[in-house]
């Protein structure tokens, strides 16, 4: 498992980053959840706290794990940076030092009436820049005929609004 890029690591450690985990399942169902607790562990895996044991998101993530499939993580910063990580759920736990770490963190942030249902550990498989400019470069090169003709790069001499 190669280490995550500097860009992804920076987004993960930035408290302003929105972190969304999407688990898809059978019958084309998918569940997107904000996961502010998502963090990079020392061994290069990712971990986040699932607040509720009986949530649909938790069931879907377990289904992915059992099926050997991957989830999607989207990291989005206020300055426009965005990163997508495809990651396979490798472990769910509700005891031990890692769980306790997330539990204490939740308590510190959310107060004494809060909890963590469990912690998912995921192995990053693939990552890509999900920001607009990066995506535009890729799409323009791969699919040039979907570019609008009034774009400045497409028709430099053309009239524009």
């Amino acid at each position: 498992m190669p280490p995550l890029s500097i860009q992804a690591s920076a987004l993960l450690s930035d408290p302003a980053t929105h972190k969304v985990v999407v688990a898809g399942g059978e019958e084309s169902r998918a569940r997107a959840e904000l996961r502010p607790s998502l963090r990079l562990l020392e061994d290069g895996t990712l971990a986040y706290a699932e607040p509720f044991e009986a949530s649909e998101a938790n069931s879907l993530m377990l289904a992915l794990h059992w099926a050997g499939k991957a989830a999607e993580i989207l990291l989005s910063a206020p300055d426009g940076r965005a990163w997508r990580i495809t990651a396979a759920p490798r472990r769910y736990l509700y005891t031990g030092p890692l769980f306790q770490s997330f539990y204490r963190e939740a308590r510190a942030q959310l107060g004494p009436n809060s909890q963590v249902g469990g912690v998912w550990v995921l192995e990053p498989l693939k990552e890509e820049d999900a920001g607009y400019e990066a995506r535009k470069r890729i799409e323009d090169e791969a699919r040039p005929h979907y570019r609008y003709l009034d774009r400045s790069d497409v028709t430099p001499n053309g009239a524009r609004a």
Partner: protein
Amino acid sequence: MAALAESAILKDRLGFEQAAAKYPAFPRTVLRKLDTALRGVLISPSALDRARQEGAVYDPVPEKGATPVKPSLRGAFFSDATLFRDIEVDEQDFKRRIKQGAPYTLDLVDGKPYLVDGGVPVEQTFFSPLPSYYGKRTQRGTLLEKVVGAGPANCLNLNILSYCNSWKEHLPCKYCDYPPSFRSRGSFTPQGWLTQEGLDDIVEAVSVALQEVGHFTTLRIQSGSDPHGARPFENEVAQYVRVLEALQGVFGTAKVPARLVASAFPKDQSAGLAAAGASGYEPHLEVWDPQAFEWVCPAKARYFGRDYWIQSAVDAVESFGRGNVCTQFVAGAELAGPHGLPTPEAALESTLEGAEYFAQRGVVPVSIVLWVGRGSIFFRDKQAAPPLEYYVRLAQGFRDIRRRHRLASDINDYRSCAVHPEADLGRLDAHRAVNGKPGAAPCPH
């Protein structure tokens, strides 16, 4: 021989990989858990040392004059948090059970704990650390773990009676391997009930245990059976009320997050237990087939019969709500000869019929793998649990029934009991369950 000719399950006797190939949608970890329950697991010395380093080994302090007890683990996890239990530290301990096939080994592979089958690592495993209250004592000097046991991870276990009347009357359930005076935790009167000091110990032990954050979500309170009193099981009910009222003081709430694994009580008595704070109730029917029930559980048949035990569970839903009343089936007991059902297929049909009956009425059916342990009549008679495939089909059937009826037992799930394979499968359905009082509104999603 007739049964063998008629039963594909007996004839095929699928091993793990064969079962996994035949039932590809059945999660491998849950299948492995069933297989470890049937075959047993022996932990290697090096893995035991690692478990100790991680705080997962219970090395009990021997009572004065008593024989030292071997170290034990509360089980170990697979990667998905499925817990498997009954890990033996000594090969000699396998003689205490009738098992199927060669046991697994729990060993270190490249420095990591793995379940090993015939020399091949098959599943990475993770130890379950003991709670921090273990080793501490009450003001009276009683070890807290002797008062309140922990395991599996989210559950605190209390036993409030030092015996089971079934054994006293020489009518134990035939699979039961508890000795006549089991579980010496706490302090008991000569009649077997908790003394005030024993009750005080419980209050203190639970209070201390709850100081560890992020560990416990529920209590399980159980006793042996005592059918006596002015009304059926009145003596037993009174003891549960006593303990619940004491625990209300610990939690500071009228409701105590505790389920009672108890005898079958009349409707008004189970209502009284709900009023005293109990959150869940489990009168275990154990066997659905009427003839097998009479034979496997003679004391339950005597006090006060199969219909009574069924009705007790059904009636309790009104007080405890859907999903908070369970009844257990000892899967495989209904097959034990000479009075049991003839084939695993017949047993499946029977037990699933029972599960459906209860589910229709808001009672959650749960199953366990038959444990044939030394001290039980089944062990004496050399009964054996049915093959792995029987348990796969039963767990699937239970899960399908529970899913269809939108039933989940949160108080008796894979984290707070961990011996019910359909609870492991049911993790995929948990969000669909409609629990609570009869007529509760369906879940919005």
